[in-house]
């Protein structure tokens, strides 16, 4: 080892050591000569004699050098220097290769950074990698769900593959009674000892004692650092103070450290026992999420296996509640982010294809450069370089290129991540630990790509060049059979590149179309000047009439305010997707309550609902004053009308919205109007919706919809003022303009569409740049020939055509192959994105035409330049 370090030092200090050796040997010779002179020799004779007894100076130096340094690395360093010099020689080719490859690698690195942040990161708690998330799945509706309290308690004692099972549930709760304005916060309920299990401790105060975690104990709360700073100005005297959460007085006992937001977003934590209505929860109320630590040796598969067995047992044991419900085991990252990022695999695939195009492009550029280098290689082979040595040299050049491209890639991913951050800046439900830092894993991925891609793009050119034979090529002057072989490869790669780009562009085209159509589906509301906010009526509003009174009074006050043009309250606002699902009852037909049967959404609305959304009722009428007092009437959306009354006039028809378990209580409603299908959820499922007057379904959870008369900035304080005037104990949750809300709710669609557009553009850019450089290079190689042709009188058009002919043929072949492949793989995207729009032959054909046109334009530039070469200069070109 010590020898190795010494040798390594030698390598780095090569120049110094070389000088030292020379000086030392010279000193020795001088000393010898001195001695001979002392014996009476002439200085010249003495020097000769000294040399004789010393031995060959150069042989000694060689032996010395062999022992010094690391011959292998020495060679590598030599190769590396050489490759940097070679890269400098063909600047245009090198630059194109570095930039296009860099963009290809950068695109992949950006996608990986997102993948890493969303799906590979552990929860930031002690030994976060051990944690698994356990929930349930309704196998009939294939919908994910939580776990009920009885299930949690049973599993807590019986699970063997995991330990420390804990339950948590985040909900919104009103915070007031502390002097500041009421506020809705994210409150997280935790089962016993959760903080200890997770290894979380407060920065101030303490967490819950076992007594406080029992049902019926005096309520306590631990708050987040952000809330402490924001609401209490970091005042340590908050400890021991009593605040109101909902309507309950609660004592603040601790403050968690900055940045702590377990599990994803939380402003405060309370024991599970403080969750309202917890103990009365039946097996069907599945609103808990579970976390557990895997025991040593247990993998995700082990846990899944155990949970699957328990699921089967529970289904037999409790057929009425568990028949269609099975446990679901995920990593914590999947649990929090899996849903949003179903589109990630499609992104990874497309990014991978783009990288493949970039590699083909780079291989091509290297082959083009190889044409100019065969003479150099032939010379080296003649001088005795082995084939392995040549391949090594060329591969090192490829790696050098990829490392330079890695630098470009890093810049590209920094820009890419900035774009992603920008798109997600308002997304409040994103777990705080999913930040896009380029951590060690991302850097390793980037380094890996820089080392793997040279194999993809470098081996073919290296293998090709290493077949060069010594004498033959020197005789031919660098052209001949090798060039023809080279030509075939280059053409093949150009075709592959363009064809692959066509497939990528078609895939991205389909996905962009899908994302945009999902984003814009049923967006019939007029979002201009619209503000929405949520609120929850406190428990003091006991009766339906009290609630209706609030809705009426608050709505009237809002509508009377001069800065507000229209306003309404409803049980849910468009795009929030929170509404009860019911079964449809029709006269004379039994209600199908079987799981998986058709469902309808029920939304209860106050006065002025459709006006404030800017939506006109299509047929029939809106609700009137009489309806609002409790008439059994309904307005259905168009999707409902199409689904259930395809051939009849829905107006005047009788329907029931049946709640499971309350079949007999459902009232018959008369349809009085048909509204357009207003988008209700982020993921459009096209649920048929029934609107009823608020009195018909008086839920305490309400959304306010306000259309500003002038600017939304003026209407926002008006909204707060009016609420305060009606009831100053109610907190307004998340008031925002609809533009903001849309950008938040639909960010996945915007973001993925944006990323796919970027990837498609990169594919287009890389393949076009490749074709341009290849054609330009062909012109350079054939300059002499072109000069001859021009000198003997070839017309410019003929020269242009001579160069462009080949490029055109390649483009036509590539577009034909690519369009066929794209058409063949048109359903590929359905694998990744279920709602992927179907593709016809039009899209591939249109993209083929577009790509072909751009590629042809790129090839025409050098072809036209060739025709305008100066014949005399061209003839002299070497």
């Amino acid at each position, binding site marked *: 080892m*010590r*020898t190795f370090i*010494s*040798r390594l030092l030698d390598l780095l200090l090569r120049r110094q050591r070389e000088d*030292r*050796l020379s*000086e*030392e*040997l010279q*000193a*020795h010779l*001088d*000393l*010898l000569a*001195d001695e001979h002179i002392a014996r009476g020799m002439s200085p010249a004779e003495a020097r000769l004699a000294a040399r004789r*007894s*010393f*031995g*060959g*100076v150069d*042989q*000694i130096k060689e*032996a*010395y050098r*062999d*022992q*010094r340094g690391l011959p292998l690395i020495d060679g590598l360093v030599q190769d590396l220097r050489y490759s940097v010099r070679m890269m400098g020689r063909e600047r245009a080719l090198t630059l194109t290769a570095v930039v296009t490859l860099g963009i290809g690698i950068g695109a992949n690195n950006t996608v990986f950074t997102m993948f890493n942040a969303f799906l590979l990161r552990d929860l930031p708690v002690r030994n976060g990698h051990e944690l698994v998330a356990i929930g349930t799945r309704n196998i009939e509706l294939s919908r994910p769900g939580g776990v009920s309290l009885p299930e949690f308690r049973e599993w807590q004692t019986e699970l063997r593959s995991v330990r420390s099972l804990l339950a948590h549930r985040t909900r919104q709760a009103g915070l007031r009674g502390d002097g500041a304005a009421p506020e809705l916060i994210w409150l997280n309920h935790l089962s016993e000892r959760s903080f200890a299990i997770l290894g979380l401790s407060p920065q101030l105060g303490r967490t819950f004692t076992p007594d406080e975690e029992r049902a019926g104990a005096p309520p306590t709360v631990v708050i987040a650092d952000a809330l402490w700073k924001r609401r209490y100005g970091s005042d340590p005297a908050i400890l021991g103070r009593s605040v109101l959460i909902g309507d309950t007085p609660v004592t603040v006992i601790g403050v968690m450290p900055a940045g702590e937001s377990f599990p994803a977003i939380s402003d405060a934590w309370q024991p599970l026992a403080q969750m309202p209505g917890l103990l009365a929860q039946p097996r069907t109320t599945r609103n808990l999420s579970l976390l557990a630590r895997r025991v040593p040796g247990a993998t995700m598969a082990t846990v899944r296996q155990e949970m699957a067995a328990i699921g089967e047992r529970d289904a037999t044991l409790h057929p009425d509640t568990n028949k269609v419900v099975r446990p679901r085991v995920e990593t914590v990252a999947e649990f929090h982010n899996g849903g949003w990022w179903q589109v990630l695999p499609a992104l990874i695939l497309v990014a991978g294809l783009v990288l493949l195009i970039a590699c083909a492009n780079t291989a091509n550029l290297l082959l083009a450069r190889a044409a100019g280098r065969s003479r150099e290689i032939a010379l080296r082979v003649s001088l005795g370089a082995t084939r392995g040595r040549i391949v090594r040299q060329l591969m090192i050049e490829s790696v050098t290129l990829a490392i330079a491209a890695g630098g470009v890639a890093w810049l590209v991913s920094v820009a890419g991540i900035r774009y992603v951050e920008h798109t997600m800046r308002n997304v409040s439900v994103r777990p705080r630990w999913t930040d896009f830092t380029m951590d060690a894993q991302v850097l390793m991925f980037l380094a890996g790509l820089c080392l793997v891609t040279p194999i993809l793009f470098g081996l073919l050119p290296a293998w090709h060049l290493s077949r060069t034979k010594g004498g033959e090529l020197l005789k031919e002057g660098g052209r001949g059979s090798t060039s023809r072989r080279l030509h075939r490869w280059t053409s093949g790669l150009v075709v592959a590149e363009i064809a692959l780009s066509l497939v990528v562009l078609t895939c991205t085209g389909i996905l962009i179309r899908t994302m945009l159509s999902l984003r814009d589906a049923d967006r019939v509301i007029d979002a201009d000047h619209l503000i929405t906010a949520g609120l929850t009526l406190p428990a003091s509003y006991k009766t339906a009439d009290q609630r209706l009174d609030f809705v009426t009074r608050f709505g009237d006050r809002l509508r009377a305010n001069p800065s507000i043009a229209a306003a309404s309250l409803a049980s849910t606002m468009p795009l929030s997707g929170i509404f009860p699902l019911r079964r449809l009852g029709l006269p004379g037909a039994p209600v199908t309550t079987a799981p998986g049967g058709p469902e309808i959404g029920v939304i209860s609305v106050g006065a002025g609902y459709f006006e404030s959304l800017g939506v006109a009722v299509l047929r029939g009428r809106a609700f009137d004053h009489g309806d609002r007092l409790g008439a059994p009437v309904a307005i259905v959306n168009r999707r409902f009308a199409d689904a259930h009354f395809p051939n009849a006039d829905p107006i005047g028809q009788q329907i029931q919205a049946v709640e499971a378990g309350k079949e007999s209580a459902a009232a018959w409603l008369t349809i009085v109007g048909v509204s357009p299908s207003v988008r209700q959820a982020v993921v459009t499922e096209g649920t048929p919706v029934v609107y009823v007057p608020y009195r018909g379904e008086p839920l305490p959870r309400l959304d306010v919809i306000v259309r500003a008369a002038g600017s939304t900035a003026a209407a926002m304080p008006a909204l707060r003022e009016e609420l305060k005037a009606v009831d100053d104990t109610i907190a307004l949750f998340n008031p925002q303009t609809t533009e903001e809300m849309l950008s938040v709710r639909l960010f996945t669609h915007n973001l993925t569409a944006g990323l796919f557009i970027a990837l498609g553009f990169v594919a287009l850019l890389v393949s076009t740049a490749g074709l341009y450089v290849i054609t330009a290079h062909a012109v350079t190689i054939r300059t002499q020939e072109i000069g001859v042709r021009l000198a003997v009188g070839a017309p410019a058009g003929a020269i242009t055509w001579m160069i462009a002919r080949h490029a055109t043929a390649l483009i036509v072949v590539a577009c034909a192959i690519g369009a066929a492949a794209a058409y063949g793989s048109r359903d590929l995207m359905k694998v990744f994105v279920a709602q992927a729009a179907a593709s016809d032959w039009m899209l591939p054909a249109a993209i083929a035409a577009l790509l072909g046109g751009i590629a042809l334009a790129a090839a025409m530039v050098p072809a036209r330049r060739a025709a305008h070469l100066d014949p005399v200069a061209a003839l002299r070109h070497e």
Partner: protein
Amino acid sequence: MTTPNSEVPYGTLDLMVLKTLAGLGPQHGYGIARRIEQVAQGSLNLNQGTIYPALLRLEQKAWIKSEWGTSENNRRARFYSITAAGRRHLAAEADSWARTVAMVNRLLATD
């Protein structure tokens, strides 16, 4: 690693250099070569240059160290001296050498 091109038995040159440095204290390459020739009394055909690869080898193993100094007739020269590790190695090698020689002698004595 190449074998030094000399008629000195392979592996013994290192030992001789270490012994010389252990006996005489810091020496430059020329002094070491001279000393070995003196002791050999003409029975060894040493190309003086061959001790430099040996010196490098020993230095890489940290058995000797070197620094620039001035020779007795005022020339700049590199002086080598033995390290503690070098002394330990010399003791072990000398012992092993003695045993090898004794063994070979016994072998040659029996016919």
